[in-house]
């Protein structure tokens, strides 16, 4: 509605075009941000291609090769030595990035782990966004006691040491699973860490959204819609939501980055993805104890994770520069 009455001639002017077009042009000029955005897309593609590499390497993420041998530079080597030390990266099809102590192919596990870590990161960020937009819009639009209830609940969430809450929930749910009415989630499902991360992150986005809705609801275009007889639902989702898109975009990449780091932290503490299912967090948790004999088990998943989160952070930074409102997620994974 509101966008329909905008004069079209504005789009032709060089720097005052539609805000979205302007932001897109600014982002296109930011080569670094675009490059890292492309890197993230490539990493997602790599994760999707995990079965392909598993086929090339001739194994699966959970298959043990404890007693197998592999030929490296013409020499036959044990995948896992008799003292339990796994082979280092061979840089060939089999055990490209080495093996772990169970004789599993690290490269294959890394790619399947990427699927889990990225799934949790993206799904959690999506759920966070939906919840935060819903809560923030309701609180900001209706004000009064609706706002009081939502805002005070967010205050409680804000006061929780997030990692402590996440770990407590994770350990508790991993044991018994979750039953809500007809919905039943088993304890080792990756939906459990996903939901935990989604819920503990809501406060980051819900607060700024509420603030924005509080000021947007007083604008003329909302008044115009109300005068035309639009109900609260139509105003919230037809008029206000399109104006929140830039805030949501700014936060989204940061939310995914933060969710991936939180997944790793929860899994490291045994409260996230449950073994034998691979994720970067569980791989790191296993690897760190073996740093002295098999550093590749720590360095490989760690670098992959840092590269992914870094690409999201740099891309998100570029999006923010292009759209310009302030977005920030507090580091909670200390």
């Amino acid at each position, binding site marked *: 509605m509101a966008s329909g009455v905008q004069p079209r001639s504005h789009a032709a002017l060089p720097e005052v075009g539609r805000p979205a077009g302007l932001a897109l042009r600014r982002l296109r000029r930011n080569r670094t941000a675009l490059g890292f955005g492309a890197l993230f897309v490539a990493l997602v593609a790599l994760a999707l291609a995990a079965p392909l590499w598993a086929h090339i390497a001739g194994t699966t993420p959970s298959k043990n090769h404890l007693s197998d041998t592999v030929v490296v530079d013409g020499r036959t080597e044990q995948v896992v030595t008799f003292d339990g030390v796994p082979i280092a990266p061979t840089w060939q099809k089999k055990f490209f990035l080495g093996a772990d102590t169970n004789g599993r192919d690290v490269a294959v596990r890394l790619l399947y782990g990427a699927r889990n870590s990225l799934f949790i990161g993206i799904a959690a960020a999506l759920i966070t966004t939906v919840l935060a937009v819903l809560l923030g819009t309701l609180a900001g639009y209706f004000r009064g006691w609706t706002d009081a209830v939502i805002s*005070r609940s967010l*205050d*409680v969430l*804000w*006061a*929780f*040491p*997030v*990692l*402590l*809450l996440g*770990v*407590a*929930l994770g*350990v*508790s*749910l991993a*044991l*018994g*699973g*979750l*039953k809500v009415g007809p919905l039943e989630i088993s304890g080792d499902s990756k939906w459990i860490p996903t939901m935990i991360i989604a819920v503990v992150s809501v406060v980051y986005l819900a607060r700024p959204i509420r603030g924005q809705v509080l000021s947007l609801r007083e604008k003329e275009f909302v008044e115009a819609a109300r005068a035309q007889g639009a109900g609260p639902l139509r105003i919230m989702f037809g008029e206000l939501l399109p104006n929140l898109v830039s805030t949501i975009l700014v936060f989204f990449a940061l939310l995914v*980055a933060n969710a991936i*780091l939180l997944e*790793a*932290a929860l899994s*490291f*503490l*045994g*409260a996230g993805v449950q073994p034998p299912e691979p994720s970067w*967090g569980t791989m*790191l948790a296993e690897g*760190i104890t073996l*740093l*002295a004999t098999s550093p590749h088990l*720590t*360095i490989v998943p*760690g670098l992959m*994770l*840092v590269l992914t*989160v*870094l690409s999201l*952070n*740099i891309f998100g*930074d570029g999006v923010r520069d292009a759209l310009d409102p*302030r977005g*920030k997620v*507090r*580091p*909670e*994974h*200390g």
Partner: protein
Amino acid sequence: MGRFVVRRLVGMVVVMFAVSVLTFLIFNVIPNGDPADRMAGKNSTPAQIAAIEREWGFDEPLYEQYLTTMEKVASGDLISYANQTNVVEEIKRGLPRTFALAIGAALLWFAMGTALGLYTAVRAGRWTDTLVTVLALIGISMPVFWLGALASYYLGFKAGLFPNGGYSEIGQAGVWEWVKHMILPWAVLATLFIGVYSRVLRANVLDTLNEDYVRTARAKGLTERRVMVHHVLRNSLIPIVTLWGLDFGMVLGGGAILTETVFDLQGVGQYFAESVGQLDVPPVLAVTLFGAFFIVLLNTLVDIAYAALDPRIRLSS
């Protein structure tokens, strides 16, 4: 002002109450097995389990259990399910270690974050700005336990520059030994925050530079240094201080579980990590409350400090 302070303090108590109820519910509503079952061990008779249930009050209604638990937290008599130690005593033992980590790291990240933020804002657009920005982003993109494990192993164990984890009491081995044990944990934990703080400060400084009062200060002929420190930095620091209050509160309250665990500092956070793995409810509840207390306290202090400085805040809402 008095009414504002009272309102904030009441709000603080309400939030603490909500946190305690929520934490209690997490472990009592989610089905994760009967604690009496776990305490009785594998070869126990139903009679033994029932006796433990009576002794620990697991057979009472939930709100009774909650009240007894909170009473015990307040009086310092809270006992762990897993090893029957006094939880409050354990937290007290971890306190100096957690505080040492939190205070050192918080000072480091505040100082470094401010310095780098100011530097990059002044150099905005030049290659030094880009370099520091990229380094800051790398800093916030690393899992702290990964960085900690690598630093502890390569700089500590391999190069022998630092001890390989652990905590050293000042009273036992002296100040120097204590500092040597704390340098890596401080640096690793601070790395995470320096990135965020320098980015936020840079954005604030760049915003403030466009304010009219900065132009006025320059027009008056003040030196660039004086303009930067007295007019720009002072105003840009306000949001940083809020953030610092929250983050410092979180780390003080045992929020740095990962750093404490990976360096084996045996602080409050590590106590939490070890207890939660055994589903030992009393310590988990106590540490969460302890952590929430510091977050809420620092948050309230920051709010009150603002209200004292800015009448608009205490008069609205």
